[in-house]
């Protein structure tokens, strides 16, 4: 059996569901069948061989969960035991394993339920909005399997005391596992939330997660979003985080990529009302053969919006770091301020970096800038430390940690920040 027919079997395996979701899936399946998997010739997939991930032996079958609580417990991020958690297993939402403490503020249910109850209208309106920005087979393929997705709603005026952590488990112990989680979130007016996503590969075999999360933010809401990728060398990932800032709202996203085989992250900020603000930070610390590709889009559709972006990369061994940042300033989006910066350090002599910061501007009263650098560690700084008796290895680790700390400092949640900081310092002291 080849990939295509495997996918087809799995697709038809999905049970009948509410009308909108069913037609959404059909549409996406059609799109996927038409477009297929993007090749390297596709401008948006130029640097990552996503076709190579799709292998014949890929297992996409929808199976009932045999997830054990002990495995979940083991994977909980340190210091977040009190947090609200959502669990996905092999790309499907697990209501039984998800624990929501702050039930008066936060509603979590399956996308299928949401498409049939009082949130149906919202789902109809917002599900699949990311497709306009990623008209490719990968996004559509996720849409075709949306029935396993989850719906999140944070009620008006509520602010969560604890973060909402989404754990994505892929069970690769019985072979190459393909998971496709789908999430739609509504952050209502004046609400505040921290969403954390992290990925766990059970079994350590080959896996592939193709995720789409779409978030809509309301007036004066504040959304903090952290994506932590530390799955292991055999885990592939393509993910889209799509944020519609429907009214003036504030979004703050941090993407940390520490490990993986082929990793692609799309992060979109669509400013649909005046005075929206977004901050995007990213750190990719790569070694081995990892290829990590961060694509970001800031789409300024209304005047007076502001965005700030800083992505940093450290590439060791044969790893490849890719960055593509697009800033669109549409007609009449006057008084837009958009800044973007991408900095890369190449350590490994086989490592490479490809970056494409891209501005497309159709309004004149704007301030936009981008900058990017690719280089090595500063010789002078290294010498300074060496002159003070610090070994070369430690000096390098110190400098790289300082380089990374700009991004880590953006994580507000103390425990999560400390955890990631520890992961990074272990990695750096070991590899530098």
């Amino acid at each position, binding site marked *: 059996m080849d990939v295509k027919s495997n996918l087809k079997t799995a697709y038809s395996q999905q049970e009948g569901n509410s009308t909108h979701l069913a037609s959404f899936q059909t549409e996406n399946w059609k799109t996927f069948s038409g477009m297929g998997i993007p090749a390297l010739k596709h401008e948006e997939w130029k640097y990552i061989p996503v076709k190579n991930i799709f292998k014949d032996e890929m297992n996409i079958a929808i199976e009932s969960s045999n997830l054990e609580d002990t495995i979940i417990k083991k994977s909980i991020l340190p210091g977040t035991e009190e947090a609200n958690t959502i669990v996905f297993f092999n790309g499907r939402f697990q209501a039984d394993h998800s624990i929501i403490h702050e039930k008066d503020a936060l509603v979590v249910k399956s996308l299928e339920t949401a498409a049939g109850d009082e949130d149906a209208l919202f789902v109809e309106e917002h599900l699949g909005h990311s497709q306009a920005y990623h008209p490719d087979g990968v996004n559509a393929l996720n849409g075709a399997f949306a029935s396993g997705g989850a719906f999140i709603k944070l009620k008006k005026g509520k602010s969560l005391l604890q973060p909402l952590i989404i754990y994505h488990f892929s069970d690769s112990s019985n072979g190459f596992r393909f998971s496709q989680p789908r999430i739609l979130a509504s952050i209502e007016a004046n609400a505040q939330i921290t969403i954390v996503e992290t990925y766990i590969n059970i079994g350590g075999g080959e896996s592939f997660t193709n995720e789409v999360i779409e978030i809509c933010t309301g007036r004066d809401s504040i959304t903090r979003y952290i994506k932590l990728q530390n799955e292991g060398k055999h885990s592939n990932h393509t993910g889209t985080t799509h944020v519609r800032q429907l009214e003036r709202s504030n979004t703050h996203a941090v993407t940390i990529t520490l490990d993986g085989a082929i990793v692609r992250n799309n992060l979109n900020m669509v400013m649909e009302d005046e005075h929206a603000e977004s901050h995007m930070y990213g750190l990719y610390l790569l070694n081995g053969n990892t290829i990590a590709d961060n694509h970001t889009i800031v789409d300024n559709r209304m005047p007076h919006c502001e965005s700030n972006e800083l992505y940093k990369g450290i590439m060791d061994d044969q790893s490849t770091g890719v960055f593509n940042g697009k800033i669109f300033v549409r007609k009449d989006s006057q008084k837009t301020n958009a800044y973007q910066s991408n900095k890369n350090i190449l350590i490994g002599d086989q490592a490479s970096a*490809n970056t494409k910061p891209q501005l*497309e501007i159709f309004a*004149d009263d704007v301030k936009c800038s981008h900058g*990017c*650098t690719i280089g*090595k560690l500063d010789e002078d700084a290294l010498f300074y430390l060496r002159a003070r008796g610090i070994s070369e290895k430690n000096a390098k680790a110190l400098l790289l940690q300082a380089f990374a700390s700009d991004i880590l400092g953006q994580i507000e949640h103390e425990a999560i920040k400390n955890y990631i900081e520890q992961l990074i310092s272990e990695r750096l002291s070991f590899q530098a």
Partner: protein
Amino acid sequence: MPEQQDDILEEITSSEYKYGFVTNIEADEAPKGLSEDTIRFISAKKNEPVWMLEYRLKAFQHWQKMEEPNWANVIYPTINFQDIIYYSAPKQKVSPKSLDEIDPELRNTFEKLGISLNEQKRLTGVAVDAVMDSISVATTFKEELSKVGVIFCSMSEAIQEHGELVKKYLGSVVPATDNYFTALNAAVFSDGSFCYIPKGVRCPMELSTYFRINAKNTGQFERTLIVAEEESYVSYLEGCTAPMRDENQLHAAVVELIAKEKAEIKYSTVQNWYPGDKEGKGGIYNFVTKRGICAGDHAKISWTQVETGSSVTWKYPSVILKGDNSIGEFYSVAVTNNFQQADTGTKMIHLGKNTRSRIVSKGISAGKSNNSYRGLVNVAKNATNARNFSQCDSLLLGDKCGAHTFPYIEVKNNTAVVEHEATTSKIGEDQIFYCNQRGMDTETAVALIINGFAKEVMNQLPMEFAVEAQKLLAISLEGSVG
């Protein structure tokens, strides 16, 4: 200084496209359309050797298999390649031996362009090769150049007289199969300039080519080849104009530069093809492939361009830094107004060790135009200690234009240092206010600020061009303020 500004202002208020005249010269034309016969016709007309015809036919066969590229950020109606006249030569009975023998009508044309061949010869000491429609009409200063061994002549002459050199280098930097338009050019190119600087010679004067499309429905496909042998130096200027016509005309040129060890080539362009009228009607499609190779160590190639014309521009002068310690530079000012579209930039391919490149690109968009910078900096695995600095700034005048940047940076060596910086903004109100306060009206203030914005690039131009280019900037932006 104020006087000079008045001049600029006067020109701003009075001028449209001032090179839009048509010269009534009888032309010897190929029948419309493109086929093997057309190519044989061109080749026969030019009395070319067999290898040249074969080269053309091979390119044509390849071209037929290719598809027109559509990735650039420009929109234009499909070109009907059968509706173009591929060869048009001003009729002359015998080939001219000296300048005096050239058709006076033709000489008037060039005088109107501001390059009186005679005057140029005497006053500025710049050697000029003028190309009208498809063929080269005059080359000045030939004798003086040949004294030091410099060959500077039209491409057709070079094919006849320096066949071996042409055969060796033609297509070595830009192969016919490189892209759609280079294949087309290789098949139908009719003339161009050829320049050869022997070892150790510093070319005693600036070399210059003027291109002009005159006849209706013609396309211009010229081919320029410059070879600088070891330790030589040449500075080359190129200027272009065309008459005002309602229909679009195609210009698909190829320029190849070869710099051997310790050689330096400086290539400057002031491109002022007819940009179309205020409604976006007519104008030249300027689809040009320019590429240089620093073949030896310590070689240097520098591109400077001022782009104010053409309705659609599609052009990326590139440098392949093959020799160790070689240097590539790219300085560009691109101005678009009304409905013009420009997608231009450069490619710096670092292959050798300690190679350095510098990119300074200034884009100015006004009216309803779109201006894109598209560049590539590529550092290959063995390019140890490669260094690049790029800066691309965009200035927006008016709220209906667009400015875009697409820089590609690909680094495969961990000792390389690559920096890229880009900004987009409009002219600050405080800057205008400052000038107004000092008695300058807004239009003059804008001209001043724009010249300041582009100064870094203008400084790279040879004297003769710098003045002209500055005026061109102001003219192209006429009426776009307010």
